[in-house]
């Protein structure tokens, strides 16, 4: 490696195609005719061993022109004093500053420490300097892929860039760890708590510096990913519901177009269901059901079974206890009777809770009957309605006049 600098610089160029950091190793390898990996390992080894590797590398980077260019960074900087010079000066001043700081607080530092720290600083500075907009994005992309091996393989052109960026990070980490390690070893740090803390801070700081952008980006990505997932889940739920109910019903309606009664029934049931789904989403908490809700549901069921339209209006409400359940069951029976026998197309159900008493009225304006003439063996009214209400301490009245419909009044 040391002999390279003596070789003609014309043939020795920093590689553009095979580069990890500045393309120095790739260029050297190409000029010498060995695998770039060997050169890289040598540089890293020299760096970890005492810092010379990094130093040589940076010097070569400055002095070797890039492939296809005829001026090195140092030449360019000295000729046109462009931005490269500014950057170099900035890096140099940062490093110098760090160096002076180290020396100023140098009670614990021997000069043997300054080299590795300096090199670590250069390594980091170069990493950040290198991470221009384009590089930085590929750098981030690489690091982001690391913990997610399941993602699809990247398209080929990006792969090399990413590998380069990844290697950059690895090199940076190696520099930091190496520098801190050397520092610890040279200052008997393991015996001193203070230095232990310092060492930890150094490592953590280095890692944070290198991976910081990644964590920020990852946090943002996760948040937006979660938002998107919630949105798409909601959409899927709506779609599933529309498919399960509305589309099915529409299909059924088309098939039954010649049966108006069936069509009306289906449309009405669908309407109720959709309305319930849209507006009462949060009400299907088990155990929280109320008299009004139970009556409305009973109405829907009967409507579905017997075709008549059942309209439930409720004023006031109360939780569904055993007595209220009996009331609903009796009311349901009354609705069934009205829907089946009255011949009226609409059945009005009115529930009212007042002063602790619940009343339900089930009214139709259909055929009606003569209550006295109902045979004793007709179970419907007697058992399901009247007896049930009596058992639960309630009352039931059935009023009916032939031709003017029937009203069942239930109280509890």
């Amino acid at each position, binding site marked *: 490696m040391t002999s390279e600098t003596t070789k003609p610089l014309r043939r020795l160029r920093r590689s553009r195609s095979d580069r990890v950091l500045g393309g120095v190793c790739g260029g050297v390898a190409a000029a010498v005719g060995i695998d770039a990996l060997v050169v890289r390992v040598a540089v890293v080894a020299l760096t970890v061993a005492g810092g010379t590797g990094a130093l040589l590398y940076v010097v070569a980077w400055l002095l070797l022109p890039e492939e296809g260019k005829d001026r090195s960074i140092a030449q360019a900087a000295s000729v046109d004093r462009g931005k490269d010079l500014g950057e170099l000066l900035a890096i140099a001043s940062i490093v110098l500053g760090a160096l002076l700081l180290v020396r100023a607080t140098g009670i614990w530092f021997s000069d043997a420490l300054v080299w590795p720290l300096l090199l670590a600083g250069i390594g980091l500075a170069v990493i950040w300097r290198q991470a221009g907009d384009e590089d930085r994005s590929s750098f981030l992309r690489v690091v982001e892929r690391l913990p997610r091996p399941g993602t699809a393989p990247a398209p080929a052109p990006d792969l090399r860039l990413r590998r380069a960026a990844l290697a950059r990070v690895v090199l940076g980490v190696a520099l930091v760890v190496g520098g801190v390690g050397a520092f610890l070893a040279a200052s008997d740090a393991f015996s001193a708590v203070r230095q232990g803390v310092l060492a930890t801070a150094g490592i953590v700081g280095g890692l944070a510096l290198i991976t910081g952008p990644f964590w920020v980006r990852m946090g943002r990505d996760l948040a937006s990913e979660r938002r998107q997932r919630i949105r798409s889940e909601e959409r899927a739920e709506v779609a599933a519901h529309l498919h399960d109910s509305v589309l099915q019903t529409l299909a059924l309606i088309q098939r039954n177009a010649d049966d108006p009664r069936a069509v009306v029934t289906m449309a*009405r049931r669908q*309407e109720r269901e959709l*309305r319930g789904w849209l*507006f009462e989403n949060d009400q299907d908490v088990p155990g929280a059901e109320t008299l009004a809700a139970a009556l409305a549901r009973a109405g829907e069921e009967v409507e579905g079974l017997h075709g008549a*339209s059942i*309209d439930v*209006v*409720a*004023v*006031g409400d109360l939780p569904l206890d055993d007595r209220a359940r009996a009331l609903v069951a009796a009311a349901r029976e009354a609705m069934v009777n009205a829907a089946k026998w009255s011949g009226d197309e*609409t*059945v*009005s159900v*009115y529930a*009212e809770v*007042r002063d602790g008493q619940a009343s339900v*009225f089930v*009214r139709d*304006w259909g055929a009606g009957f003569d209550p006295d003439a109902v045979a004793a063996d007709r179970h419907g009214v007697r058992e399901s309605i009247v007896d049930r209400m009596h058992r639960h301490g309630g009352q039931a009245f059935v009023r009916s006049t032939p031709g003017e419909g029937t*009203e069942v009044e239930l109280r509890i």
Partner: protein
Amino acid sequence: MTEPGGRRPRVFLVDDHELFRSGVRAELGDAVDVVGEASEVGAAIEMILERRPEVVLLDVHLPAGGGRAVVQGVVPTAPEVRFLALSVSDAAEDVIGVIRAGARGYVTKTISGPELADAIRRVADGDVVFSRRLAGFVLDAFAASPGPSDDPDLDQLTAREQEVLRLIARGYPYKAIAKELVISARTVETHVSSVLHKLQLSNRHDLTRWATERRLI
């Protein structure tokens, strides 16, 4: 209902659903004279003021202000125009809101054609049309124990008014209510109008709270 085959009220339709407007027109057929229709608040107000229909069939849910905005836009200039609210929504806030704005009645969109024609005629005659559901809402709103009140006459329903509303909610037509309570159909009508009046003018504490709970005000 009053004079079948009699005069045909001049009706204006306001609904943002074209399909529904044509459905209503078809259902009403010859029973009424549809003098125009509009699908948005601004156009509706303009055309109603220009054509002066007797009854406006008003959808509660309209973009930009809803049915309430139409009522409020027309009534100051043309108080003789009557509104019948029509909605698929059974939500109390929509119903009470449009009534308090000045509508003379409320029916749901599932109402049958003949029933709707009848409701329109009654509104045209100056009557009030309470659906069962509206009656239920009103009972609910006035049900809470009467709190401190500036004007007890306005802020409470009389026992008779409550009886009438309860019978409406139970599904009784006016005639049957009259028979049940042994009063004339005209008296029933008077009670209902009085309830509407209270509903629109009362600033009863409980009503306000009830409305606030349902985000009306």
